[in-house]
């Protein structure tokens, strides 16, 4: 018995990596399809977009993350855009950092392609239904300036077109003309949006963040400064589940598929913690 305990206690960490890798890859090959309960922060955001933004309304999505957290945050953006398309809501994307603008561009190409393929009777066009603002440096300053004059902040979209020439810009000048905004970020830039866009200009907003950061933002949900939150891949998967439930999407998407792998990975962590502690207590008892 002690031989096994000692072996496990000094096991080469590469075996641990291998077990985790198998645990994560296996569900992609053999999907589990775990059922999912929708949590209130996710349903609040969904219901607000679904019921409170009128047709032709405006939603802003700020893509403030880089590729390191895109596995969690990219599916959120895609699900939000798909939802807006289904409600004929105009969507503006932007990024406060250059990597975010690149990912926003990727998000637009993917969602436009997928939507137009599956909805030939409701084609969405870049510049009419969705647009990407040009990158402007300044982070908090950009957020503040948008409250005064959105056209003056960006001047052009990311493709060099004058904002005044875009049909999507009709009637959009300040935050007063944006019905809802969601910041997707894994960093504290969310606080800048809460403090400046919501605090100073009363912009109604929601949060999309990584699972590891979400605990930080419950205080703002509770205070009403944000009315909904998508936390980590599960938040995105819950949103996708709501889209499927309401017939906006038909198939399981990126986040829902990834949840099986994440479930398996988390379960593996718990098993590691339990086994590690059993080893620890047996050895401690033996030493006494």
């Amino acid at each position: 018995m002690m031989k096994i305990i000692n072996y496990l206690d000094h096991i080469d960490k590469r075996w641990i990596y291998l077990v985790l890798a198998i645990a994560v890859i296996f569900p992609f090959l053999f999907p589990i399809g775990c059922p999912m309960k929708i949590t209130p922060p996710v349903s609040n955001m969904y219901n607000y977009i679904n019921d409170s933004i009128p047709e032709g309304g405006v939603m802003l999505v700020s893509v403030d993350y880089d590729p390191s957290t895109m596995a969690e945050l990219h599916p959120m953006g895609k699900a939000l855009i798909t939802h807006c398309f289904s409600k004929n809501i105009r969507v503006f994307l932007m990024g406060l950092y250059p990597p975010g603008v690149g990912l926003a561009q990727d998000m637009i190409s993917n969602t436009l392609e997928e939507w137009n393929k599956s909805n030939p009777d409701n084609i969405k066009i870049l510049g009419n239904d969705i647009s990407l603002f040009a990158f402007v440096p300044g982070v908090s300053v950009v957020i503040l300036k948008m409250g005064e004059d959105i056209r003056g902040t960006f001047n052009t979209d990311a493709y060099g077109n004058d904002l005044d020439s875009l049909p999507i810009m009709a009637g959009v000048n300040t935050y007063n003309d944006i019905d809802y905004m969601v910041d997707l970020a894994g960093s504290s830039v969310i606080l800048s949006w809460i403090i400046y866009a919501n605090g100073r200009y009363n912009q109604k907003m929601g949060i999309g963040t990584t699972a590891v950061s979400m605990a930080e933002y419950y205080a703002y949900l509770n205070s009403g400064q944000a009315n909904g939150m998508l936390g980590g891949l599960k938040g995105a998967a819950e949103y996708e589940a709501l889209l499927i439930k309401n017939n906006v999407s038909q198939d399981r998407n990126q986040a829902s598929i990834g949840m099986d792998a994440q479930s398996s990975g988390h379960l593996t962590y718990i098993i590691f913690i339990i086994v590690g502690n059993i080893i620890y207590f047996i050895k401690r008892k033996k030493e006494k």
Partner: protein
Amino acid sequence: MFLKKQLPLLVAMFMGTMMIIQFFIPHPFSKNVYSTILDWLMIVTAFTLLIAVQSTVQMHITKIRRKVTDWQSSVIVLTALGITVFVGILGGAYAPTNILMKIFPNVQPGSDTPLMYLYIYFQTPMQATIFSLLAFYMASAAFRAFRARSFDATMLLITASIVTIGRVPIGQFFYANMPEVVEWILNYPSMAAQRGILIGVNLGMIATSLKIILGIERGYLGGGK
């Protein structure tokens, strides 16, 4: 001395005080001043990006010159930087430039640019891969370091385990109301601690801002002592 020390302090004091006063005056003149200052700030920030590039280039050139350990990595950094800048200027960021369309007639106005290609197919997988390695280090730490050595450590371990398993759908197999339990943990005990930290941090930020405006805090001027 005046230009290096007193003048920046006076500028900081004037601008800080003015922006606070401006906030409470909804007059069009005040709003115009505010809007103009925001424009200035965006221009200044754009120049800080240039300083960042200059600093990166200078640091890596120094490393190559001195042949420090792994100086070859600096060559890769500078080469990648040069290629990206060249491709970006020649081909455009999100829409292809006229020069690119002239050189490659099959490139259309709606086509992807070479810069986006580099970003999506080089930088994105590399950065995502590096970050995903964290999952493996965490697995190793879960097995070796996450031990119930004391009461505090045990509390942390139990809470973290509940949140870890409750934040994925498989948690519902063990206990149907697991998502509600996790929401409760995040909404009450965790938020109480977060609020305490946030209030402390923000009070500190207000105090530091006041110290800068009043010229007591001078660390931002640089220059050591």
